[in-house]
């Protein structure tokens, strides 16, 4: 039997098949997953995060619009307009009573202030450091609401003073019919209200959500020390301030993502920054899990294939040995059958075949032996008349020498008869010969 080449080896072939059919697909799947599927899923995560920021912006928009409408309700109040037009005829108490009628219908407003010429009327929170300054933006406005940046105020409650952060809606008090300007209306709101509205999208760690205005000045932040600071020096500052919504990746000690959305009402931005590691935490976990599972699976498959190949090639090797023994003439070699599958059946067949061969060979040997014995017997049969013939010839010549012719002739005839007798099996005896011997 020839020796099998390395690459022709069944086990090697099985190994190659295992690599091509299982190993490579797993690697390709892993690569595709890493390259595309992960990107797609990661994009979905980003989109989801963007959507949550947009929703928060919409929610805050509704809050601000509601305040806007409330301010419109105030500036369209004919009684207030009349008082403002003739404010010299009304005292502070009358103005405060009027403003009180507005603040009592809402629970989210801290204070309402009215500035008419140099007089300031205020109802609600007792603000210690009241500021009468009217910023140019408000001064130049045409009656539309102007949202002022958050500022810290000192509120007096009983005997104590408390620090709070207020953002303010301000607008000119203009009679929408007469288009006459009487003063300024200011509605103060607690910054906490904004913080509560975005707290839902605030993650536990390494995440930051806040609101800034069109100029990048922070309006609301969980870390109050950052209020009124600017985001313009941040890596995402420029893009955030020049776009309505979107997201961008940047590096700040780690890879991070800034997601932002603009509040339609006043152009403020809701910004969320998050480490991409945090954002994609789940997907990375899934990826790791799949990697481990894939690796274990691959190892198990290889082990299984080895066992499988050994289990299924071992009987073949045994068969090869048996065949080799048979080839060497050992017809006593037999397969030990352990399984009832195709390999087992093959073993049975091989054993049967060897049995048949054994029988055939035995039969042939027996026949050959018998044939030889017959030939030997025939030879023996041939050898005995020859010696008898020689002896008779000797006697004939002795008789002839002694002159006993009749004896000599009788012996000659006997010899001839003997010859004919011994040649009966070889040739036909002619009728002449029979007559002669007779």
């Amino acid at each position, binding site marked *: 039997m020839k020796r099998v080449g390395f690459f022709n080896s069944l086990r090697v072939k099985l190994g190659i098949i295992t690599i091509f059919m299982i190993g490579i697909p797993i690697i390709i799947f892993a690569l595709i997953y890493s390259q595309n599927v992960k990107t797609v899923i990661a994009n979905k995560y980003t989109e989801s995060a963007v959507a949550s920021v947009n929703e928060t912006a919409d929610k805050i928009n509704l809050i601000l619009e509601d305040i*806007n409408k409330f301010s*419109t309700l105030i500036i369209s109040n004919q009684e207030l307009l009349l008082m403002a037009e003739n404010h010299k005829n009304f005292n502070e108490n009358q103005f405060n009573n009027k403003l009180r009628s507005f603040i009592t219908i809402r629970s989210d407003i801290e204070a309402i202030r009215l500035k008419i010429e140099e007089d300031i009327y205020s109802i609600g929170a007792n603000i210690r450091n009241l500021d009468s300054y009217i910023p140019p933006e408000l001064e130049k406005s*045409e*009656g*539309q609401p102007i949202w002022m940046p958050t500022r810290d105020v000192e509120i007096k409650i009983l005997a104590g003073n408390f620090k709070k952060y207020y953002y303010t809606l301000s*607008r000119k008090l203009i009679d929408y*019919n*007469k*288009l006459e300007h009487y003063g300024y209306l200011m509605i103060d709101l607690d910054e906490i209200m904004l913080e509560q509205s975005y707290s839902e999208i605030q993650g536990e760690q390494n995440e930051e959500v806040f609101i800034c205005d069109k100029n990048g000045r922070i309006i609301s932040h969980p870390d109050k020390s950052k209020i009124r600071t600017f985001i313009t020096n941040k890596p995402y500052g420029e893009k955030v301030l020049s776009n309505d919504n979107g997201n961008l990746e940047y590096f700040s000690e780690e890879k991070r993502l800034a997601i932002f959305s603009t509040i339609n*009402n006043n152009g403020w931005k809701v910004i969320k920054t998050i480490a991409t590691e945090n954002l994609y935490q789940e997907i990375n976990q899934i990826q790791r899990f799949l990697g481990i599972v894939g690796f274990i699976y691959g190892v198990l498959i290889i082990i299984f294939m080895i066992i499988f190949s050994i289990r299924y090639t071992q009987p073949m090797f045994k068969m090869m040995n048996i065949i080799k023994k048979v080839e060497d003439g050992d017809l006593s070699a037999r397969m030990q059958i352990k399984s009832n599958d195709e390999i087992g059946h093959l073993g049975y067949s091989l054993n049967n075949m060897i049995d048949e061969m054994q029988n055939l060979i035995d039969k042939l040997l027996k026949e050959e032996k018998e044939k030889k014995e017959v030939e030997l017997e025939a030879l023996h049969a041939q050898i005995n008349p020859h010696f008898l013939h020689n002896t008779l010839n000797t006697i004939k010549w002795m008789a002839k020498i002694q002159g006993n012719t009749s004896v000599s002739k009788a012996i000659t005839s006997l010899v001839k008869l003997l010859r004919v007798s011994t040649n009966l099996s070889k040739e036909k005896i002619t009728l002449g010969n029979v007559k002669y011997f007779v």
Partner: protein
Amino acid sequence: MKIKKILIIFMLISILILTSCSSDKAEQSKVPNLREKENNFQTLKDNLKIPADYDIRQFEGLSLNFIVEKNINANILSHESELFSEITGINIKIRAMDYDSLVQNTNLDLLSQSGEYQIIYVDPYQTTNRYYTHLVELNSLMNNPDLPQIKGFPEDFFEFQTKVTSNYKNKDKYYAVPFDSTTMILYYRKDIFEKYGDQFYQDKGYDWTPGTKEFTWERYSEIAEWINKNVPDSEVKYGSGQMGQEHNSIFCEFSTVLDSYGGSYFNNPAANTYGIDSFKNFDISGPNFIKALDVYKQIFTTAAPDSVNWNWTDTANAFRDGKIAMMPNWDENSTYVENQESNVKGKVAYSILPYGSRKSSNIYGGSGIAINKYISKKEKEAAWLYIVWATSREMQLKILKHPEGGSLPTRKSVYKDLEIKQFLESETEHLDNNISYHHLETVLKAWREENLYLRPKLKNFYLFEKVLIENLHQMIIKDLDSQQVRRNIENQLSQIN
């Protein structure tokens, strides 16, 4: 096993057959809808001037709030807008409200720059005059070749309506497209006038048919008084009803009387068309102003007593209920006055308003559609598409022919429609059944230059109007002297200035 296999195969075949049948049905039901949509789309394309590569569904899903006066037009428009929404995918939310709420909400929205109402039904005397800088200057959209265009603007629109409704101060800048019109005309009970015509003639010696030059405001008052005395209350209680409420109504009504006697508020003709900013140069010093005040006061002495507290809606209700025989009112109320639920259905006739010493003055009060400046570009373009559609000839004709009726169209070409033409030429009597057409001839007569009255359009009209309203109302409820009333008005206006 075999039975089981056969059952499974049978079930699978059944499911396949059912699925194919149901999908066929769905397809079948979709086909007519698609065809209908395609037809509607084609009709829209044919009727509007739409650029070839314009994607009519580019604004699909967008919602636009249209603030509009709660009138029959708004009702018709809300029905018709469904078709527009179906074709374009733009959701039009019609916010209909009474006139005063409309003006207040519109003006506050514009003042606040909140852009809550993208499309605005603008009154030129209450909104465009004060807030034109808050409206989109439509020239930018009209001159954009990539956008649909209004076929026949401005030439197909009545010139006086465009001047009043679309422009402010500058004739080349358009802030609104005329959408509807309303004109004050005289409503009267033709059954009463026919029944008592001879009796009146015998008593007074003249024909009382409204619409003639002899039918003056003085005679109007005289006729009202005669009806009060001679016509049983079971038929009609009062001869006339007026609008004496401290409201824009009294200003409009008095202004028609004033103009008919040759009086005016300003000597500047531009004040009555394109508009002016200030009323500093008001002039009510002429004798005609006093005459008008006297006549107006006289009218109230013979009118239904409640008239001093009525505005145009109250007066229309009184007429509809059969309480008054005559009233000046906006023509847009005619279908309301004459509809199935009305007590005076089939008993109403129309004429131009009574004459003064100079003319019959029929005040015009149409409105336009404008776009809020404080909305996104996309919303502006979608709103423009809606305006192009709503002011198209076909849409205007639809409103006119609508069974519910509406105000008269602002496009000239609508009146060239065969059916309308035949009606106007009295060739088709059956069209009398359409109550929308009853006042048509009268309004077209009122729009003639010699009968038309355009009130002043001022930026600070509110203050001007307020002074007049207060003083006119006081005059009629307190029977004040006309000279004194004029002095009061002059003084108050001077003080404001």
